[in-house]
């Protein structure tokens, strides 16, 4: 941790207010969420589904899940009509895997413009001897900033990844990094928006800790 890594312009998100509670999971048809909801149930974290803009008010934080093709996922998200409301969210919001990639400005997967909440790009891992793609399995995650999302998680803990595209490393917004071929963003943070490339719902006890941490941010 260095001084320059602490973003003076980052403000901590609003606390839940106005009777809203629990995690709203943005439903847009990209991937299966059974494992995610099962994990939240196991952890005793309340959640519900967000299908329309009106549903957003019921919750005090949100998860954008996502598995599969980023371009296809963005088209599905656009077809729900939720994009302007998501971009305007002020409560804590966590994108997981492709849900994280959607927060960036662009993905090479499908040559697609995305939500642009982070001025970062989602790129394909370059073909490199000795490094297989998809990046599949448990790799170490190194937090680079102080943030409650990684509370009680030792630096260098392993999380479960499975992805062929990555979000470039950017000192301002990279919350934690992982090295595969080169360092990339294992997680990102800007104001109330968070993203994790790994699957916390599949990442053992530390993954569960991260979801618990998010539920308390």
């Amino acid at each position, binding site marked *: 941790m260095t001084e320059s890594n602490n973003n003076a312009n980052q403000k901590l998100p609003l606390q839940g207010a106005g009777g809203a509670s629990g995690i709203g999971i943005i439903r847009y048809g990209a991937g299966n969420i059974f494992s995610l909801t099962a994990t939240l149930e196991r952890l005793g974290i309340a959640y519900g589904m967000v299908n329309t803009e009106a549903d957003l008010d019921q919750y005090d934080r949100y998860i954008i899940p996502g598995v599969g093709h980023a371009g296809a996922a963005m088209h599905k998200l656009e077809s729900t009509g939720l994009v302007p409301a998501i971009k305007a969210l002020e409560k804590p919001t966590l994108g997981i895997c492709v849900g994280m990639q959607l927060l960036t400005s662009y993905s090479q997967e499908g040559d697609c413009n995305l939500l642009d909440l982070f001025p970062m790009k989602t790129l394909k891992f370059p073909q490199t001897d000795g490094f297989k793609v998809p990046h*599949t399995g*448990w790799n170490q995650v190194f937090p680079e900033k102080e943030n409650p999302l990684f509370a009680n998680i030792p630096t260098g803990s392993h999380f479960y990844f499975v992805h062929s595209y990555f979000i470039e490393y950017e000192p301002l917004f990279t919350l934690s990094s992982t*090295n595969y071929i080169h360092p990339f963003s294992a997680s990102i943070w800007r104001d109330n928006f968070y993203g994790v490339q790994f699957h916390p719902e599949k990442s053992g006890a530390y993954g569960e800790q991260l979801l618990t941490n998010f539920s308390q941010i």
Partner: protein
Amino acid sequence: MLAKRIIPCLDVKDGRTVKGVNFVDLRDAGDPVELAWNYSQQGADELVFLDISATVEKRKTLVELVKAVARQINIPFTIGGGITEIADADALLNAGADKISINSAAVRNPALIDELAKAFGVQFVIVAVDTRVMGDKNIVHLNGGRLPTERQTLEWILEAESRGAGEILLTSMDHDGTKAGFDNGFLTQVNNAVNIPVIASGGAGSVQHFVDVFQQTNVDAALAASVFHYGEILIPDLKTILRENNIEVRV
């Protein structure tokens, strides 16, 4: 660093695990969910369930089982056995499976790999290959190694990769059950030829065999069944020794 994965494999029939298990603290050794939870607590990195149920009706039990596993465990798991079409895979995905494994169905209908990869992404599709040496060639076998095909194994694996396999589970039928170690020679050959993860299977009998497979080949994961089920190798001990040999594992 990306950790090498240790993967116990559970055979399931009609919703129950079939191979013997002698963990002392299991209430019900035939309950796949309890066994899976136990393995996840021991530090297994991933689990594979192979469904060997004979009938389609019995396979419906599998979807319920997959849901029960997904509710209880916090590591990834793969389901194999009897998947011949998109609808089978879709039901398993929706029940919480992270990946599916196809074997004979892919050999009989290679386009199934393309269809599954297109529908669910390559990360969802493991192609399992059972190989046996005939003459001086590795030949793909079906039906648990009993039925030889016309296909040379390496050539089939390369085709599977090009069609959209996200991972290869390679079982040497010559080594399977021998407890004499993995087929490190052929695994090296396959691993060097592909750019997707390879899971080694067949022959694990001792901790040293796991050290050997990771030191002599660059495979991504090693799978075994009986040495884990019978408690001959405990995963925490295995990982300690792998780490002592400078092999990266998840703590």
